């Protein structure tokens, strides 16, 4: 069997020294290359901590994180990230915001000057894919929250990262925009096939987007349940009204309730 792209084994994370808060303990998971995994859990269960461990932004206190066959020891340079807050740079227009990773990541960084036109075209194509064609010269504050989040997604994808980390990227948006962006994200994923770890507390979002949903316990976080999602792609909003979908979301909800009470759930 092929080695998983992301391997997390028995990872623990404690903040603030020996007496500090234990955010994660005994967390393990494997993620295959090109897989779309969603991590759900009650609030404060260490989902965001997990993301920072995988990308090497923080070191784990115990256990191992292996990405693409190498132990993670410092920040990866292959990850794209998007957060709840779009964090676009207000002094750059949308096109320049999206191109920011190309100014940082090798080998694009060296080639940017020579191949500017080519890269700009890539960025424009990507913006068109998420429905932002014609907004390249606008500044972030001229765009609505949903459009800023689309641009932020483009910024996470422009350098074709092998690993895409999404930390509640749609949490601050209204339900209609959110559902719109689920489809956008699915389209992008189906074209480019990056490995995605999506952290969310929206169970419908997890069920709609992921190949596999992992449920975490409350702090210290561990994986307590895992569900494969078999709905054919591309999934549409119709999918979310199918009885199987509703019952999957219902099951996930049960796990979360159990997790909040601190009960053990059998792997389904």
């Amino acid at each position, binding site marked *: 069997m092929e080695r998983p792209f992301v391997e997390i084994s028995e990872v623990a994370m404690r903040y603030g020294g020996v007496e500090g808060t234990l955010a994660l303990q005994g967390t393990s998971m494997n993620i295959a290359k090109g897989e779309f995994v969603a991590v759900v859990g009650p609030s404060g269960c260490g989902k965001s901590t997990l993301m920072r461990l995988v990308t090497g932004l923080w070191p784990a206190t115990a256990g191992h994180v292996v990405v693409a066959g190498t132990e993670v020891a410092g920040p990866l340079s292959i990850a794209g990230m*998007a957060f709840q807050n779009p964090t676009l740079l207000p002094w750059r227009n949308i096109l320049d915001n999206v191109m920011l990773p190309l100014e940082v990541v090798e080998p694009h960084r060296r080639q940017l000057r020579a191949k500017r036109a080519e890269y700009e075209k890539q960025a424009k194509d990507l913006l068109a894919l998420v429905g932002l064609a014609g907004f390249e010269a606008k500044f972030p504050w001229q765009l609505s929250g949903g459009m800023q989040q689309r641009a932020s997604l483009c910024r996470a994808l422009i350098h074709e990262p092998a690993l895409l980390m999404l930390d509640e990227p749609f949490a601050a948006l209204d339900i209609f925009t959110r559902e719109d962006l689920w489809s956008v994200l699915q389209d992008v994923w189906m074209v480019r096939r990056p490995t995605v770890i999506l952290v969310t507390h929206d169970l419908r979002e997890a069920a709609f987007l992921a190949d596999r949903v992992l449920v975490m316990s409350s702090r210290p976080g561990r994986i307590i349940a895992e569900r494969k999602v078999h709905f054919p792609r591309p999934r549409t909003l119709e999918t979310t009204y199918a009885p199987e979908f509703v019952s999957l979301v219902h099951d996930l909800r049960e796990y979360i309730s159990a997790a909040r009470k601190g009960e053990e759930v059998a792997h389904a």
Partner: protein
Amino acid sequence: MPDDTGAIRPAAVANAAGMSPEALKRLEEMAAAARRRRRLQAWLPWLVIVGMFVVWEAAVAAFSIPQFVLPAPTDIAASMVKWWKPLLDNSWQTLMTTLIGFGFAIVFGLLLGIAIGSSTLLYHGLYPLLIGFNSIPKVAVVPILVIWFGIGTVPAVITAFLISFFPIVVNVATGIATVEPELRDVLRALGARHTDIIRKVGLPRAMPYFFASLKISITVAFVGSIIAETVAANKGIGHLMILASSRFDVPLVFAGLMVTAIMGVAMYVAAVSIENRTTGWATRGQNDQQQVKFGGA
């Protein structure tokens, strides 16, 4: 995208075909009201200044205040006309002194601000020293400077530098040190080096803070150079005012104050116009014509 294009171009909405005449008329009325409001805003500062002088003149006349206590604005103007040559010479001297000191403050303030803002170690190490230094009254430093450099331009330049340097350092350091953690994570996960983050995010982000500090710094730089000139100089507006007061020529003292205020305002306006040109993104909305049109009725 039907969800979010509407808020972007109100002008396009206003010009859109098929608008009823009543709606167009109402829009025009709102625009006219906003224009009147902007005109008033532009004239208001001048009206206030003229008003102040009128009240001043009237008060001096009404209470027959002697000229050596508080000269009337007309006396001050007369003194300005009479002594225009020395006033011009000395204010030129003060302006140059201030600008040189201010220039040094910009260069060193930026460098130190960037250094302190990008390194927590430097920040914690240097901050107490800087605050201690800033608490020292600069007028007390001037005699020391005179011992070191003698009477003349140099102590005034250094005093202007010392007094205007601190706000620049603090502001630039704050701008760089307060980069959003998420944004830092986005860049670090791309493999960005510390210098990349400072260059791409920290510095541009610190620019509005920097220009805000320039507005404070340039006005206090005048305070610095004039303090030094009153204590130890043979040229400059401060020196001129000391001479005038020793001769009880109070209108000339006030004329010196006026000239200083005018220079301060002029430099402030210059700093603001540079700020608007370079970091307009930070004050979005305030200069946005469309927003005024819709919100200013």
